[in-house]
């Protein structure tokens, strides 16, 4: 997902201009006060989002990745009501509540209830699929462009000690505090609230006691989604704009706030949200607006590593294993005969001799490169069970490493590519290293955060990466002086790289080392007890996996001759994971089949191109529901 636009412009510069009229101390205090109000207002939004995520995590043990999309839908529904239908604000609120409540119930039905007996990570992946679908539906209906949301509120501002607070600030604060209070009373004093808390603590026991667990879950999703939708609408009014990509950042920040307060802890989520808002607000005034998103990711990673139970939880450990299990359904791989592989490889090799259409060749080249990304992801996620949602970050490191090595040091591509791959392996492993103590879902969240942090670094380290401008005029890929000028050459180079990567990975996976990785995936407790040093084998798998990712990034950058911080976004990570699931976890041939299918099918059925992400989201949803072992099965 392309990085969301900056959420707010800080009010500091205007104040700094007036510095002459104010003493330094007063100036500082005023800025401080202003940033505090700013932070608390945004913090209330984060709190609303985080509370929803906390409720859902509480009852369903599920990190709901679709929550950001619900928030975005809420913003759009509010916008349609106010600007297109001309409804008064309270009526718009009512519509948002109804629509988002129903949406929440739908998500529970599709993402949770039907997957109760699947692998533990299945619901999480399903919510990712749902978020793809929702984001794409909104984009198709209202275009990608931001829509202006003129405030339906009076423009009055109330002066308080030299600064002023607007009506929207008050509305947001009132909604935040009000919903927290109502929620508290609901959970504490109503029968349904008790049922909800009982279900959160022990689903089976609650069911035995006659609680209709499905109804409770549905209620929880509805309540959570209503809060999310309201938050989205308020943000739309606050920043006078709504846009489809606001969903991803919102979901992630809500999650960071939730984690800060302790996963599933509702009062903790409120405090976490306010705290995150304040940290961001102060941080932005200290470091600049481009750093805004970094704080949430930094908090995400730091809390996961230092205090996974959150700031306000007395528990001494992370919740005890509600989140066991990687996405490894029990299945036998479907054998693919060697002659079939040889035939397919031969056909791929000879294809450019018979097909001259550059469009076809470009699409297939993309498919080969995505196959490598899928191979890289399937090694970590499928073979060793370390679910990664942040592989795009490693691809980006490879691309930048190779770009800088060729441009700044003047190295030839033949040397720069392996050097970039090795650099990515070193850097990538170092980045993931602190997350080695995490298990299951937490690994997925940490890698997601790491991927985002890489992009934030690229954006902010101007001296190294040229910041927003990116790096252009990269020389085309060339090996031993043979430049890939024609598309055929690029095609063959990409195919050759894929061949090398696949062969190396094949040898690794079928070696005793691969066996050790799979033991670590299937049961890490038993694996340790049989002498497997988890850290050593996690290091080895991430080094091998990021090596391939880095190689892919290096080639891709030179192929396009231009890269910037938006070249390798989170979408690539998720798409790669979808390919891996489609092909079968840890299945090398499956990874290539999945990549070729997902890249080329939408392109070759032209009708589908516009609906591409819709197709990806639906593919993910259907696979998880009906064929979790993928086309070719788990290896």
């Amino acid at each position, binding site marked *: 997902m392309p990085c969301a636009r900056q959420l707010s412009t800080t009010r500091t510069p205007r104040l700094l201009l007036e510095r002459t009229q104010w003493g330094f101390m007063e100036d500082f205090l005023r800025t401080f006060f202003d940033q505090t109000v700013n932070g608390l207002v945004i913090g209330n939004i984060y709190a609303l989002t985080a509370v929803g995520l906390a409720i859902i995590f509480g009852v369903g043990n599920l990190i709901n990745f679709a929550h950001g999309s619900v928030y975005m839908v809420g913003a759009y529904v509010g916008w349609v009501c106010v600007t297109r239908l001309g409804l008064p604000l309270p009526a718009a609120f009512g519509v948002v509540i109804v629509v988002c409540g129903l949406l929440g119930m739908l998500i529970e039905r599709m993402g949770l209830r039907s997957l109760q007996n699947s692998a533990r990570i299945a619901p999480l992946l399903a919510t990712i699929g749902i978020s793809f679908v929702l984001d794409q539906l909104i984009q198709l209906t209202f275009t990608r462009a931001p829509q202006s949301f003129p405030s339906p509120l009076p423009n009055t501002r109330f002066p308080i000690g030299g600064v002023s607070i607007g009506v929207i600030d008050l509305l947001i604060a009132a909604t935040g505090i009000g919903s927290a209070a109502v929620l508290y009373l609901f959970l504490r004093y109503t029968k349904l609230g008790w049922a909800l808390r009982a279900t959160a603590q022990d689903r089976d026991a609650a069911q035995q006691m006659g609680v209709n667990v499905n109804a409770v879950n549905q209620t929880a999703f509805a309540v959570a989604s209503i809060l999310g939708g309201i938050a989205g609408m308020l943000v739309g009014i606050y920043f006078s704009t709504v846009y489809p990509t606001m969903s991803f950042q919102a979901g992630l920040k809500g999650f960071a706030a939730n984690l800060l307060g302790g996963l599933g802890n509702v009062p903790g989520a409120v405090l976490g949200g306010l705290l995150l808002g304040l940290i961001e607000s102060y941080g932005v005034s200290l470091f600049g607006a481009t750093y805004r998103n970094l704080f949430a990711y930094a908090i995400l990673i730091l809390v996961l590593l230092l205090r996974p139970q959150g700031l306000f939880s007395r528990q*001494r450990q992370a919740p005890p294993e509600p989140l066991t299990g990687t996405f490894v359904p*029990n299945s036998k791989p479907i054998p693919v005969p060697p002659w079939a592989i040889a035939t397919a490889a031969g056909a791929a090799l000879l294809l450019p001799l018979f097909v001259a259409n550059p469009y076809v060749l470009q699409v297939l080249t993309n498919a080969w490169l995505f196959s490598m990304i899928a191979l890289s992801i399937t090694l970590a996620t499928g073979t060793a069970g370390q679910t990664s949602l942040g592989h795009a970050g490693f691809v980006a490191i490879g691309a930048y490493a190779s770009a800088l090595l060729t441009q700044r040091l003047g190295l030839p591509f033949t040397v720069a590519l392996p050097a970039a791959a090795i650099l990515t392996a070193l850097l990538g492993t170092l980045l993931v290293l602190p997350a080695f103590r995490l298990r299951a879902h937490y690994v997925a969240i940490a890698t997601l955060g790491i991927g985002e942090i890489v992009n934030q670094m690229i954006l902010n380290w101007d001296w190294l990466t040229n910041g927003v401008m990116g790096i252009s005029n990269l020389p085309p890929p060339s090996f031993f002086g043979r430049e890939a000028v024609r598309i055929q050459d690029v095609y063959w180079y990409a195919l050759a790289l894929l061949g090398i990567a696949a062969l190396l990975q094949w*040898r690794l996976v079928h*070696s*005793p080392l691969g066996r*050790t990785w*799979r033991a670590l995936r*299937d049961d890490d407790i038993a694996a340790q*007890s049989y*002498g497997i040093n988890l850290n050593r084998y996690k290091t080895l798998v991430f080094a091998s996996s990021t090596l391939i990712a880095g190689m892919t990034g290096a080639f891709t950058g030179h192929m396009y001759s231009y890269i910037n911080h938006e070249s390798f976004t989170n979408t690539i990570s998720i798409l790669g994971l979808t390919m891996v699931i489609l092909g079968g976890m840890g299945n090398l041939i499956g990874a290539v089949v999945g990549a070729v299918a997902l890249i080329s099918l939408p392109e070759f059925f032209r009708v589908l191109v516009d609906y591409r992400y819709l197709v990806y989201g639906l593919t993910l949803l259907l696979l998880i529901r009906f064929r979790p072992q993928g086309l070719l099965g788990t290896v």
Partner: protein
Amino acid sequence: MAPLLELNALSRNFGGVLAVDHVSFELHAGETVSLIGPNGAGKTTLFNLITGLDQPSSGTILLDGRVLTGLRVDQFVERGIARTFQHGRVFGNMSVLENVLIGAHSRRQAAQRGLPFIELVRELLLALWPSPAVAAEEARLRQQALEILSLFGERLLPRLQQPAYSLSYANRRRLEMARALASQPRILLLDEPTAGMNPTETAEVLAFIRTLQARNLTILLIEHKLSLVMELSDRVIVMDNGQKIAEGKPHDVRNDPNVVEAYLGHPAPHPNGPRFSADTQFQSKGTTTNR
């Protein structure tokens, strides 16, 4: 004779609850010792401490006079301690043969420690291009795995390439024992190896443990089927509420008033009266079955 394994005042405190309370005992080479006691007595927690999966709050564990406490879990296996799990933890998506080979993991050349970083590169390269020595080692380990699996007769051998998730419950327990043996342990810890097994299967396990005893393996056994305990053990240790309440020859322990109280909740009414409830497994001497 110096003990092989020595526990000194081992304790484990879970937020105020002493799950294991100053337990000390010794295990001599070639002995079979059983650990019995009511549910919740702390037997499995003690197993977790001895195998390094959990760290004691106080006390030490010594193997051959060397301190084990403080090592990482995976280092316990290298020192020669292997276990099975109470509920069975096989690697579901891996074949029977592969599961056993994992047991031999810490003996593999490529898995040995070396210089930091270099050891990792070495293991990667040996996986990509195995040296003749490494290839020969792998072949040898496979041969050994087959020999171990043949101890179970025709139970597992015909299923070598089947994934472990497809095995029956009893076969998974067997596979776990085979995997533990593959590490060539000095001490084998078996956590309720016959749980959920029918009489015939229990008898098979008994015969299997007899084979291990004949090979002079040191065994620490948690077991609820007391007939099995009586038949196999050189010594029995009884735990209750985290404490060791009795230790001695099977016959002596069975008459210990503390033990009777721990099981029945009140002292034995009469020394010659029924020692345990009617269906007690203590009464049936020499049989291998439960009832």
